[in-house]
């Protein structure tokens, strides 16, 4: 075992990369849940985003078109969920599960021709002087644009929810859809928009895995990241900045266990690979006591009787 082979600067830099898919998916889901909808289909939307992004990036040679397609793919899949739960008033838990099962199958079908192909590389931002600063440079300025986009989305969501009228309306719909409806807000329309946003974010997160993090396509490659993102929203008690914190925590665990695997620690690989999931459970246990921040209408079906 050689722990000195783990470079702390690279560790932090790769932690941010590992955290970004979870971050993107979780911040999208946060907005969805704030509007009072529980979409358990994050995993399905992520994997659909992962393959649509990968396919378009390979076909066009442009990773940015790929990310755009991923957001679109995730949003289109989430539209199915929106139709089911908002228009057909189906159970949200069951619909979310259906979305995940369907997404996993669909992505496997779409991805057949793309196994074993390398996607075009996503260029890192290379800011001449800043990126060359030791330690801080690679950590803060040496990443690809999508990583910064993720952080920017967190900031925007925070501003939107806290300081704007749109955020207030969104929260009102999530807290009490009947009251919001009585005030004349279009509950269903607002929720559909939130679901689409969540889908687009999850799609981006998925594409980040297939285009930057891994980068290649394998079936079922999201391996539960979508579910971890769902847990993260609970962990963050529906607060945007805590999503960022949580995502980096999970990213850290993932990267650390990979580094420990590489360093040849005496713990078998399988047990190290379990650790992110076990940590998720532990975190859920510690934080589940306090549900006071959960949107009051979360998961409830809205039906305007008049």
């Amino acid at each position, binding site marked *: 075992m050689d722990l000195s082979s783990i470079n702390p600067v690279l560790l932090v830099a790769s932690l941010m990369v590992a955290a970004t898919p979870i971050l993107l998916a979780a911040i999208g889901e946060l907005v969805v849940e704030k509007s009072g909808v529980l979409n358990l289909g994050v995993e399905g939307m992520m994997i659909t985003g992962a393959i649509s992004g990968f396919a378009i990036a390979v076909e066009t040679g442009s990773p940015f078109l790929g990310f755009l397609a991923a957001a679109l793919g995730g949003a289109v899949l989430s539209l199915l969920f929106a139709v089911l739960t908002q228009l057909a008033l189906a*159970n949200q838990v069951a*619909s979310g599960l259906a979305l995940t099962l369907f997404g996993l199958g*669909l992505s496997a079908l779409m991805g057949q021709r793309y196994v074993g192909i390398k996607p075009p590389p996503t260029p890192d931002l290379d800011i001449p002087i800043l990126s060359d600063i030791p330690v801080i440079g690679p950590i803060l300025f040496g990443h690809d644009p999508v990583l910064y986009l993720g952080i920017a989305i967190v900031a925007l969501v925070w501003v939107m929810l806290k300081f704007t009228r749109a955020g207030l309306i969104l929260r009102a719909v999530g807290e009490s859809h009947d009251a919001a409806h009585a005030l004349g807000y279009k509950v269903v329309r607002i929720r559909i928009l939130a679901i689409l946003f969540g889908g687009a974010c999850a799609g981006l997160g998925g594409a980040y895995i297939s285009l930057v993090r891994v980068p290649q396509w394998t079936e079922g490659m999201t391996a539960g990241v979508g579910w971890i993102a769902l*847990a993260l929203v609970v962990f963050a008690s529906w607060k945007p900045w805590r999503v960022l914190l949580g995502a980096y925590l999970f990213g850290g665990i993932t990267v650390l266990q990979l580094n420990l695997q590489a360093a040849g620690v005496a713990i078998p690989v399988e047990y190290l690979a379990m650790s992110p999931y076990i940590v998720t*459970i532990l975190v859920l246990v510690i934080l589940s006591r306090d549900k006071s921040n959960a949107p009051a209408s979360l998961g409830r079906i809205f039906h305007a009787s008049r």
Partner: protein
Amino acid sequence: MIVLEKRPQPSQAWSLATPVLAVLATMLFGGLLFAVLGKNPVEAIRTIFWDPLFGEFAFYYRPQLLVKGAPLVLIAIGLSLGFKAGIWNIGAEGQYIMGALCGAGIGLAFYPLDAVYVFPLMVLGGAFGGWAWAMIPAILKVRFGTNEILVSLMLVYVAEQLLASMSLGLLKNPEGFGFPGSRNLNEYASATSWISQDIGMHWGVVAAFIAVIFAYVLLNRHMLGFHIRLTGDAPRAARFAGVRPARLILFCLGTSGLLAGLAGLFEVAGPAGQVSIDFNVGYGFTAIIVAFLGRLHPVGILLAAGLMALTYIGGEIAQSQLGLPAAAIQVFQGMLLFFLLALDVLTNYRIRMRMREVA
């Protein structure tokens, strides 16, 4: 303008009709999907739904129906109890793996002892493995209010890693020339779950039928079953009626885990034969579709599992004969759940045309 009007009571007729309609809609859109993939849709649908039952080689495929259907029935029956009460066990796949590991572990420990009690002990082990794995989310939910959906699902990934570790390590066949995977339990007469391989009968099939009867009696003739239904339909009323939610959570998750564990054990000791890295094939997730398609009703689940088993077998035939990708069947199954959920609106609501009023 189209408006939905809530029915005073869910419509019985629609409740029975929606699964059938959903299957027809899935066939239609599945056919379209196959056409997009460049296959003849009529031929593909016929290969999936007709050939396994009445085709030229049906004598070979029909027994497979029991083999694939049994684990689906076992798992879905367990899940349906919880789903009825609003307790969501999504991690049946993990409980299935743990049941298989515990049961097979006991069997392998006795190898090569020839005794009648080996298999019963394995059954107990399998049930215990699945039950114990499901008790983790159950106890966490009761004690800390943790979301059982997320915990049970996370445990699937943990179980998959354990499975990999076991088939490469502790349970590896010492005479397997270094290949991953355990001894083949089918070659160990005291440990196999087969009754007759020719007609697809193994103890899992028997257990599945017992589970259906057990669930039917429980839900219709027993107080506990009434409490389960009451909690699902009216949680507040249930609390006033003295239903203890904690007990219900432990029972529903425990039972579904136990049944999933049994399904895993019967599979590993029969059709699969050995513990290997890719032993689990997603029955735990497909069973969720089966439970819904069967309307969470024991007899419905039996029929739904038959249909899903048919798509598995038909899918395999279509794969080898028409070159249909394996994932297409997965999409097909997912689609079925979508249509079912969407059409269910007709069970609970009436569709009315109404002129837009001025507010």
